[in-house]
């Protein structure tokens, strides 16, 4: 992988040393667990791994974001704006909040779900609609894909499998340089035995969805 960091005086072109993912959503959607699963999968593929996560007060229904970086050589957890490879958004307005982390080469995967923050009306704000948010995002970005992952999770058997569906989509899209085996192993590591079957189905449904996105990409 080669990316162009700078078009300045000496044309600094460097080989890409690390892959960066930004997971965003609302507290309770499983953002941190998703990041943890990806971290273990990257470890199994032999990479160095770094994450930075939101814990504590902000988690109470607030915006949650988690950075993940992995590669043969990586020290830092925070991703500079413009250098995210993949943004995985569990909620559409949270996708919009981080749109400026994406650069020309960022792929944006967005669960087309809106969670209206409580108190928004009381504070005198009007929350934009799904369509409005989608349009804003499409106007800003090229490589952006919408899907209904909550529906797929329910189809698999539980709304709680949302994060596994999202991981499946990411893998199916072929944009995530992690082996399927590693990701599957890593998922199982965090799922209690009794829920493994539902999550296996959720993963497959996600992968299929991701593959259809891949066809769109071509």
């Amino acid at each position, binding site marked *: 992988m080669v990316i162009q960091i700078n078009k300045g005086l000496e044309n600094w072109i460097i080989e890409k040393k690390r892959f960066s993912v930004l997971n965003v959503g609302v507290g309770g959607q499983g953002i941190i667990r998703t990041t943890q699963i990806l971290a273990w999968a990257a470890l199994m593929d032999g990479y160095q791994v770094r994450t930075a996560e939101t814990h*504590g007060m902000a988690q109470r229904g*607030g915006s949650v974001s988690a*950075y993940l970086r992995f590669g043969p050589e990586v020290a830092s*957890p925070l991703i500079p704006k*413009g250098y995210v490879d993949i943004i995985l958004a569990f909620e559409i307005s949270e996708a919009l909040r981080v*749109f*400026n982390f994406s650069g020309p080469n960022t792929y944006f995967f967005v669960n087309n779900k809106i969670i209206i923050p409580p108190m928004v009306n009381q504070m005198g704000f009007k929350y934009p609609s799904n369509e409005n948010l989608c349009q804003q995002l499409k106007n800003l970005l090229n490589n952006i894909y919408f899907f209904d992952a909550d529906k797929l999770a329910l189809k698999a058997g539980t709304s709680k499998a949302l994060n596994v569906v999202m991981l499946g989509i990411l893998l199916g899209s072929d944009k995530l340089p992690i082996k399927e085996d590693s990701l599957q192993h890593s998922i199982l590591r965090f799922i209690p035995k009794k829920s493994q079957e539902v999550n296996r189905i959720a993963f497959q449904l996600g992968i299929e969805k991701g593959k259809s996105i891949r066809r769109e990409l071509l």
Partner: protein
Amino acid sequence: MSMPYFAEEIPGKRVIMLGNEAIARGILEAGVVIGAGYPGTPSSEILDTLAKMKPYYPHLNIEWSINEKVGFEVAYGGSMSNARSVALMKHVGLNVASDAFMTACYAGARGGMVVVSADDPNCFSSQNEQDNRYFGLHALIPVFEPSTAQEAKDLIKYAFEFSEEHHTIVLFRTTTRLNHGRGDVMLGEIQNIDRPYGFDWDRARWVCLPSHSRVLRTKLLERFEKISNLADEFPFNSLKLSSEKINGIRYGFIAAGIPYAQLIDTLIDFGLENKVSILKLGMVIPPPKKLIRKLLSSVDKILVVEELEPIIENILKQLAYENKLVNEVEIHGKDYFPQQGEFSGEIYLEKVANFIGIKFEKNSIPDIKISLPPRLPVLCPGCSHRSTFYAITLLEKELKLKFINSSDIGCYTLAVYKPLECVDTEICMGGSIGLANGFAKIHSTENPILAILGDSTFFHSGVPALINAVYNQNNILVVILDNRSTSMTGFQDNPGTGIKITKEPGTRVVIEELVRGCGVPSENIWVEDSNNLNKMVEKLREAVKSQGVRVFISRHLCSLLEEREFRLKQIQIPVVKVDPSKCKGCLICVNQFGCPALSFDSEEKKTNIDQEICRGCKVCISVCQYDAIYEEIN
């Protein structure tokens, strides 16, 4: 249950660890015996993880202490008794512990003694972003700072050895991104410290009265000087020199902690990692003077990359002066990087490019302004605090009085936001009652003074302030929000639950008995179920109208824990619904009570209850004046 990955005895195995787990692992590997502290983001998971290790390593003797000062003293008692000991807290916790800490640093460590201070640049979960590296300079002890999870594990392990060897307490400073970031870590060997533990009756050392302290102060200065001279050989400090010039100039960098990790990747991004000199610090205080002198005399321009205060930068400038190098080398720091907040990824790219004189164009798409209302953290659905605060707002309206709601640190501070707006002050742990004491001296009965704080916060430092109110007859109403948990930091137990960190039974301290013991008369103490709104209003009215020091204990289990308990005991969560034929669309439940499970259908002009998130607390049934909300019984 299988052994958690952070407890496994397989040296060499690579795992992913949260920074806090890695710190706990380092503590385990060092053979530490005593661990004590008080929960506080971003430090809490360290002791939580040690608690999970305890079943496999029974020698670990750990506790959640009542506050950071006591936690420090517990650990220091361990160190005095020759056991390796650790005290764990967030940055502001060290303020609480500092009375003991400052003098303990005179007497120093016997068994290895480390204090972990988790700092929080950007105030992600804190009331300030103080830089606790200053405590090292203040107390004359070394400050270690790791830059990755692996280094955190290795460095804290080494810190105990270092502490014992040099008889010094070590301050182990981290920042949020280290504590709450994961990284690959290679497990190391778990040391077995085989030596007798016990007190040594060395009164000249442990009794810090003036005649002893003067002697101890001399020893402290000698110790710090010795450590300062050793800093150049400190294994976690490293200097990489490069004689290369970029446009005729030799560049140097100094960093530690997360900024070091970010800096290194930034230099790699620019292909500069071998073209500049880099001094990496694992021990930030005291600084390695010889290494710094070498760097100062090897480059033309130095950039110090440190978040918050310019501590290293100032030390560097001082050393440049002492070494007569002021005219030979330019020292930069805060003229490039801000003195506030966390440095974002792109700040490093921008400032390093700026410093070296490379043109750097931002890669990100234009930063246009988006019109999106904020998503603020809120009290959870079914949170018992909401009910208490709502009762307070109802009373304020009914009595036509403006209360001064002096509040405190915990989930309940979120009631500052709309629609409750029931929090008027928040400074520090236990500060609600202390400030209320002051307000009572100024304000008339037109402004009833309420001190509102949680159960754990009350135990932490509310008790002395309550005794103060009783003693000095400061007329206040203390409202203790007893949700039987230290929820904000991860549901830790406290004296009010009587459950120890290991989940073994301890001795429960009953708040109403404690309050009575503080001198509050029985007729001035109320205990009510927070979720019984009508009764709450009635009894709170009584309490507000009474005189003297009064304590109102509003008690109901944290809704998140209650949901967990219901699930465990297979109890059906009550189903609460809205009868559309009765709902008048008055919006009181949505706009004034404001549970996140309630929303308003603006077409039908009716309230909806989101059954996915409703926790069946049933408080909204009492909120509704038209009996439109009911519990569905099948």
